[in-house]
């Protein structure tokens, strides 16, 4: 396959960015999208040009590092991570636009690499269960109904890639935040911190400069792990409940 790539190039956080055009040839449909970019980069290095910087690591769809907007879609045309997207999803002769996540809470570091540390700070605000090492009771002391365990797992699948934010017209982080809240709040182990968790994480989310939610649903459509949109509704209910409860006390 022969392709034309239009890639966002930006030297560093302070520099102006712009789209640059490259041609790549000899691309196999069995290549992953990132292997196609590897091919481009090998050529650029030999030409003495700066290769395109992009985040990637496991290339198995689980670490959440890769983060490209491809032809306007977070992670591209298939519902998967960029690293699991293969060139068979494109046609010979295609022109492909490649951009970084675009959100004010995710500033660009270089080219296609953005700073997602805001996500870490949301987790730090309450996305955990306080269980210091050594203090745990026997695992079978508290049975968890299978439906609850499955629901917790479904939300815990979030890989923290940020596609939800990139896809959202408002740059909101509601799906990410709600996934963690729903994972922990449904479990009996998470109950003691149920209210403080949702209040603190939502407050941190707002502080990081993510946009508000208007329920467009783009986040859930882009999510490579299929975190459902209803997750946001559940979080809002948790938040209301916690707000009322704290108002009463």
């Amino acid at each position, binding site marked *: 396959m022969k392709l034309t790539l239009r890639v966002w190039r930006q030297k560093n956080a302070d520099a102006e960015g712009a789209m640059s055009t490259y041609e790549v040839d000899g691309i196999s449909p069995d290549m992953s999208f990132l292997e196609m970019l590897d091919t481009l980069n090998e050529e650029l290095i030999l030409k003495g*040009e700066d290769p395109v910087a992009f985040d990637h690591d496991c290339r*198995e769809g689980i670490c959440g*590092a890769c983060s490209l907007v491809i032809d306007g879609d977070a992670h591209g045309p298939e519902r998967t991570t960029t690293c699991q997207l293969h060139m068979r999803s494109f046609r010979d002769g295609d022109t492909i636009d490649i951009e970084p996540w675009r959100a004010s809470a995710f500033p660009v570091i270089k080219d296609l690499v953005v700073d997602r540390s805001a996500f870490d700070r949301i987790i730090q605000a309450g996305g*955990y269960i306080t269980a210091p090492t050594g203090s*745990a009771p026997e695992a*079978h002391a508290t049975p968890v109904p299978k439906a609850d365990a*499955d629901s917790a797992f479904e939300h815990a699948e979030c890989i923290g890639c940020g596609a939800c934010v990139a896809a959202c017209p408002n740059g909101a982080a509601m799906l990410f935040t709600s996934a963690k809240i729903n994972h922990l709040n449904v479990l009996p*182990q*998470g109950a003691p911190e149920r209210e403080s968790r949702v209040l603190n994480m939502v407050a941190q989310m707002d502080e990081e400069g993510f946009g508000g939610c208007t329920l467009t649903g783009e986040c859930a459509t882009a999510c490579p792990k299929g975190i459902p949109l209803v997750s946001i509704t559940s979080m809002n209910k948790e938040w209301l409940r916690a707000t009322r409860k704290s108002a009463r006390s």
Partner: protein
Amino acid sequence: MTASAEYTDYTTGEPVADTKAPKGPINERWDTRRFEARLVNPANRRKHTVIVVGTGLAGGSAGATLAEQGYHVVQFCYQDSPRRAHSIAAQGGINAAKNYRNDGDSVHRLFYDTVKGGDFRARESNVHRLAQISVEIIDQCVAQGVPFAREYGGLLDTRSFGGVQVSRTFYARGQTGQQLLLGAYQALSRQIAAGNVEMHPRTEMLDLIVVDGRARGIVARDLVTGKIDTYFADAVVLASGGYGNVFYLSTNAMNSNATAIWRAHRRGAYFANPCFTQIHPTCIPRTGDHQSKLTLMSESLRNDGRIWVPKAKGDNRPPNEIPEDERDYYLERIYPSFGNLVPRDIASRAAKNVCDEGRGVGPGGQGVYLDFADAIRRMGRKKVEEKYGNLFEMYERITAENPYEVPMRIYPAVHYTMGGLWVDYDLQTTVPGLFAVGEANFSDHGANRLGASALMQGLADGYFVLPATINDYLARNPHQDPVTTDHPAVREVLAETEDRLDLLLSVDGDRTPDSFHREVGELMWEFCGMARTDSGLRKALERIPQIREEFWRRIKVPGTGEEFNQSLEKANRVVDYLELAELMCLDALHRTESCGGHFREESQTSDGEAARRDDEFAYAAAWEFTGTGEAPTLHKEDLVFEYVHPTQRSYA
């Protein structure tokens, strides 16, 4: 950088011994050690700084636990977030001797299975401790909210893994590593928020600082600004993972690398059993030269999938058209009692053998079938989907083939390294104050790791072992002189690091870092992969110094060191692969027996199984660095088996 003598002419130095494991009955040793280890007064802990490099299962759990205990932790990861360490990609599960199934499991059986699975090349005391701690890990993770799979009654579900006949593997669908890692990451996040952990993401350790014979800090580079800095501490913990990426193609993450452990090795830490590499039997075969990494298909698939190849050579019919009696379910045939669940080294070698016979399937004949047709008939598609859905989806995504309809094609690939920095029972290396946890050390898996044991070991080390043993070191060294940047030892390490990066940037040759990585990786796969021979290893040992020489003549790294520069990161990692590869080959050459994942063609039984030679090789090989390209010094740690008596492993 020229060798003064042939690299293969290594010298043998004083034996090395673990001096920390107490004597006495094996089931009391860990208790005894914890009691004998000195403690640090809680009020004094905050005066101690501990550096932790890496945030995977071992590093994340160690950082969180040390901080909970009151130590000041300074932690590093090269990823943009500690949540992305490669433990996250572990799929199948975590072993624990809970015996919830009442199927005859016990701490002793897990201990026995692990020593046997490792082909009798692991230290008994360590493995027994691991089995004891395994049950606490499950409790800890459940308390953190790890959503393990559960039965309808609300209790935890388990499944079977290779090399064992009990069901002791706890799992969270095919994403157990992810869920355990997020548990550790969340515990770590809590400590970051509390100000007890100073976290440095996108920062890579480039060297170890040793002052007056003790590990006192690291040199690290901020990958965003390029700034190289020094960080000081009272102890340093390496949790930087394994070195499978020496092979270029492996199931490791793209940026997983050996620099932290290799640089520590150069500074005095012995490197044990570097040739013990695990080749995982069930990975998706490569599709072409563009391949950048390989993807694992969880071993759990072998619970229900059946492995086969056509009986006839060169049978090119589509799998569904090959009748049952023309298929060879070779694992079930050769190993009737374990069948498809033989340990990984055995399954991998069997796959290689049938492919070498010309019976492999798929492009280039480098593959075997993993077939779920029987499982779908037996339990229905829905149940198969529930158990393995995400793995099937991933397989289809990569290969464009639907495994519900056609059998998967799989082939072995480099997955895990049992070797690593030599550590004593306290997980301390030969450099006082330097500890190694998780895959970075060599301690528990011998010559072959059993499935679902890596997660167990990483968390055992990080949550329970290190936090207990590091106290002893810090209590015995309470008032170390402060180290500053103007200390000559610090200035020297810093200058060496800067010089190395400057040199990489200044060569301006005509080959990319990846091209060298690929070259050394292919060499290693050919000569130090699934089967090794004297002549092959000698060929590799002749070739590696030549590649190294060429590297420093022809490497091309664009850009500067004062910016985000992924080519520079890569080139610097390749520098270390080019030295480590040499040590791996030498270790493989010197060990003329076969054991576990180390298969020397010269040493096999009449039916082609690995033939150990316990009279000569019942030791861990701990190598001391003497200079690049210089023959290293071998220190042997004799392995004493008091509880599990070495026998020829039999899974038939």
